[in-house]
């Protein structure tokens, strides 16, 4: 014990905590954003799945700061607030997260357009999986168009949020 090098300074420790907490908080904020009644000003049927963007972004860039329990918490908050089947989006986000983490080497060092295409695929899997599970849950074939529309809207605004997350990540790297 006595041979251990000097531990991290309090500032560095705070940086580490920020690194673990802030992406998670950003994910929770994204969930809340989905419930802000934006449909009053823009014509959209269902708010984009902002939380999915957070899950995808951190799964690609830093899965170590956005661990599975963060994904679970984000999905569960979404389920609790939306009055839908409890655990539905938590499960779907976790599966998508697992898939993205396992394939992240394909996109992580590439240009942004590749990452964007990757997000398109992830959103498609997310939508179809959510639709299948919800159809099983309710015991009837639901319309898939609502969720596909939602996913398209999500893919369309992904660059904006990727940019914001990028800023957060850069800031955290400086801190950490």
């Amino acid at each position, binding site marked *: 014990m006595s041979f251990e090098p000097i531990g991290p300074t309090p500032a560095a420790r705070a940086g580490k905590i920020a690194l673990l907490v802030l992406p998670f908080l950003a994910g929770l904020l994204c969930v809340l954003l989905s419930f802000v009644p934006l449909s009053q000003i823009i014509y959209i049927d*269902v708010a984009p799945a902002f939380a999915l963007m957070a899950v995808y972004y951190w799964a690609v860039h830093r899965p170590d700061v956005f661990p599975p329990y963060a994904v679970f918490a984000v999905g569960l908050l979404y389920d609790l607030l939306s009055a839908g089947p409890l655990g539905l989006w938590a499960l779907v986000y976790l599966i998508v997260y697992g898939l993205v983490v396992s394939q992240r080497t394909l996109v992580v060092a590439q240009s942004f357009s590749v990452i964007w295409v990757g997000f398109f695929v992830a959103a498609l899997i997310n939508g179809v999986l959510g639709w299948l599970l919800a159809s099983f849950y309710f015991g009837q074939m639901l319309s898939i168009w609502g969720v596909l529309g939602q996913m398209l809207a999500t893919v369309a605004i992904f660059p904006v949020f990727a940019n914001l997350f990028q800023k957060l990540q850069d800031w955290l790297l400086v801190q950490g």
Partner: protein
Amino acid sequence: MIDQTNRPALPIRDVSGRVPLIFMVSLAAALLLLGRAETYVVDRARQVVTDLAAPLLEMASRPVAAVRRVVESTDQYAYVFDENERLRVENKQLIEWKERAIQLEARLARYEALLNVQVDPEISYVTGRVVGDSGGPFVETFIVNLGRRQGVESGQAVVDTQGLLGRIVATGVEASRILLLTDLNSRVPVVIESTQVRAILSGDNSSTPRLDFLPPGSEFQAGERVVTSGHGGLLPPGLPVGTVVEGEDGLYTVRTYSDRTKLDMVRVLQYLFPTEVDAQDPPPILEGTAEDAPGAVSAIPGSRATPTGDGT
């Protein structure tokens, strides 16, 4: 690259490896199966989370409402002339209607008094703002900033300026959840106003809910008004719901008057089933028969119904 330069990052990565992921996936799957039972715990958790999120959503929905008002007022400036013309014409028609309404109202009050009808109890209401969107593709619910503190209870009807929107399904202290008519789980007893044909309005997550359980051979046409029937005692009778639309496959759907894409302020109706309130006597107006109205009513034997009267 990060792994090589930043050694302490490694343990965190190990922790976030496969095992937690599998554990979390099984936990979510278990919740999905358990939640099917809609237990008390799940309901409580939802209410608590909704209550906690409501102030944040309320704050966030204020700028949205402000932007919306600006957009609407700009729209109004653009069409102010046309709108004025239209309103002039409409006002003329409405004045004629008003005359008729006053006449009919007087006549109706007279009939009610004569027959000692137990009129429907008056409905009080509270008005609140929609602060939370449905947020998911498979549910059609909204969060409104009214809760138990304002006297909101599960089952109460929610209307916007045009017609019935849905009903309250869960209440917290400061926020409640509205189940829209279009939600998969929504079932509302309705009648077609002109013919009094009864049906159940079933939501299916599409924008136009279905008319189910129509009696065989019932006759009505597309475009007729649908109102709540009041059967089951949950919703007050006669709330406007929408107009009948005939589908291509012989199914009838309803285009609701309420517009879920333009929701701002909504009213929660605090309706009591007629048996739960004291006798609702008709207004004592039989002007022609006596000097003072109450005397006139009591001229009809047994017309002063007691609160526990058998008229209900």
